[in-house]
């Protein structure tokens, strides 16, 4: 992995990371000193529903950034947009994003991956009817043998194939999948498939890896080792952006947290500051989460009137905002 190291020292030192993140202002869309991914005005609408509406987001190089938010917040859609699996509705009206200085506005999913930003999927896409080893070998970039003209002549690609094989075995060993290398990927457990998908993504020597719910459906013992792997990637100098629901995981490994709700960025900050942020608590629990619905006082006409007014005001505000944008 050392070839792909971007920041020479990496971000292995926790104190250095804390010092770095303490310099960021904790508000949505804040600027960072060395962003690897910069996203501007990405809007995705499905019919009348706005799934994603992100004004500005920067992801700092060499850190683990968590993207959290309640169900339906648009996290996965945002992932799909940034990695080229979906096109933003705002494609012609100001949607820009760049990765490591390269503009990605119009590129396809495969060229995003070639630029060095590789993703995994929420529902793992292990290639079930191929062996674990074949799965890994597919991850490597710039294979001469994948060119149709050269494929017929094995001496042209034999040597490169062997190098890739060594690398694949190394990675499989690291993810403790080596003894499974000749099994069909379909026979692996859900957690092992997650590991395989991550290992396969790493075969392409990415600069940044985007993990969509890496811990979903993984047993607690395996979660520990997965977390270890993700941290060691960061220590090797890779940037990690991941979507996760488990707050313990987020608190445990992320250096910076971005919160989405209803398609927008609502907060940014370190794990602790974000979790005490009222906007985040509102997003997860609703604005009236601390009101006791069993309280008889709520049934009085005055109180109901008050709540109705509050709702009306909120709706008006939202509409006004909608017209503006």
């Amino acid at each position, binding site marked *: 992995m050392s070839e792909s190291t971007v920041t020479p020292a990496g971000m292995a030192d926790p104190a250095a990371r804390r010092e770095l993140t303490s310099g960021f202002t904790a508000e949505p869309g804040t600027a960072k000193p060395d962003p690897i991914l910069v996203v501007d005005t990405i809007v995705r609408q499905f019919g009348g529903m706005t799934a994603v509406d992100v004004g500005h987001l920067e992801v700092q190089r060499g850190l683990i950034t968590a993207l959290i938010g309640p169900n339906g917040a648009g996290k996965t859609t945002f992932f799909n947009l940034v*990695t080229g*699996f979906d096109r933003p509705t705002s494609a012609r009206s100001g949607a820009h994003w760049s990765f490591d200085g390269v503009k990605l506005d119009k590129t*396809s*999913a*495969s*060229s*995003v*991956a*070639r630029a060095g930003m*590789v*993703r*995994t*999927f929420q529902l793992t*896409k*292990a*290639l*079930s*009817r*191929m062996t674990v080893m*074949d799965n890994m*070998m*597919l*991850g490597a*970039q710039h*294979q*001469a*043998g*994948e*060119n*149709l003209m050269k*494929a*017929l002549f*094995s001496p042209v*690609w034999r040597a490169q*194939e062997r190098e890739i094989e060594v690398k694949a075995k190394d990675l499989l060993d690291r993810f403790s999948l080596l003894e499974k290398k000749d099994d*069909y*990927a*379909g*026979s692996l457990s859900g957690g092992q498939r997650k590991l395989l998908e991550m290992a*396969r*993504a790493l*075969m*392409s020597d990415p600069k940044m890896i985007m993990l969509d719910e890496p811990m979903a459906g993984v047993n607690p013992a395996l979660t520990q080792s997965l977390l270890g792997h993700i941290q060691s990637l960061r220590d090797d100098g890779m940037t990690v952006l991941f979507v996760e629901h488990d707050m313990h995981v987020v608190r445990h490994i992320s250096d910076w947290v971005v919160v989405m709700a209803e398609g927008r960025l609502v907060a940014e900050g370190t794990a602790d500051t974000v979790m005490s942020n009222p906007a985040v608590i509102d997003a997860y629990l609703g604005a009236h989460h601390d009101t006791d619905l069993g309280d008889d006082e709520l049934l009085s006409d005055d109180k109901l009137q008050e709540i109705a007014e509050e709702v009306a005001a909120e709706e008006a505000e939202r509409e006004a905002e909608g017209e503006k944008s």
Partner: protein
Amino acid sequence: MDTIQSILNAMVREAVSPQTAAVAIAVIGLNIHFGFTGLLNIGQSAFMLLGAYGFAISITHGLPLVVAVLIGLAAAFVFALVLGMPTLKLRGDYLAIVTISAAEIIRYVGRSVGYDWLLKLTHGAQGIPGSQYRGPFTDLSPFGDGNTTILSFSYHDVAGGAAWVTILGLLLVAGLIAAMVLASRRLSGRIRPAAIIALSILTLLLVLFLAPVTGQNTGVRGWWFTVVTWVLVGISTVVVLLLVKSPWGRLLKGIREDEDAIRSLGKNVFAIKMQALIIGGLFGALGGIMFVLPATVQPDSMGRSLTFFCYTALLLGGAASIFGPVLGSLLFFVGRAFIISASNAYVPDSVLSTDKTAQFAFVVIGVALMLLVIFRPQGILGDKRELRFNV
């Protein structure tokens, strides 16, 4: 005994027929589409028909043989491009719809009589008679004139061709096939292919001993046609073997499993699918050229039913296997010949008249295909594990 002998002869004649081999080449192409890449091409007959038209029309216009073959292949190449451009970015079902309708369009254009210039090229539904384009190919034959019987030493020479010789021979054939199945299951390493090849050569010799085939050396459906077509089957198989074992072949299987996963790894899925469509189509065109050489270029003989014969042969032999297409085509045509001649011989005319047996054979093959897909979906040579985890 004579009826059994005549049934046997009919089967062996069908097995060595150049048209069986020609369909095998087209099935090899279809295997690249369907078996390895997962492209549901229901228009393989159109690739064959275009190859045949390109070849036959070029020769009737006085072009040399090599150029004519290249033109036939080029027609299939362009057809693949035109089909692939709009459909390969969409989901697989769309390719199926487009290929089946495009195949029908090609067939109807070929048989249409509306335009004089077109009619002069394709001769409408009657088609281009083989005698008009067969010449240059027949002239190449080094075999000379006359007849040759393959295996001059045959059952006639043992005990005067008594019935027990044939029965013993048939039992031996069954034994050899059983041995082959055992060898493919029990053996491993380098002995396995060697044992299988040795056993199949032995079986072939024994079959030819039991039912010697006599044919012209050079004439239509003669040995020259048979040898060239089967050699082409061999070459196609080797090419596919090399391609599939390469990283390119690995990519094909990856695309069959999950396109998005391959895209997320930075591969150009569209380009690879297009390459697969073209390569499979070229094999189809080559099969088409060899298919019409001993016959005529008749659009209706290369319609939907031929595509479905190809699929039957492919599923029978085993999709995504190397030798599956060849074995499948052999079994398909030999099995059909067996059903036709056996029902001619044993079913009384009051139950099934002789001219209906060909249709009856297709009914039996259809039922066999259904049973096959239900009880052995991987076909004869397919890898069961490749189908088991289809989540």
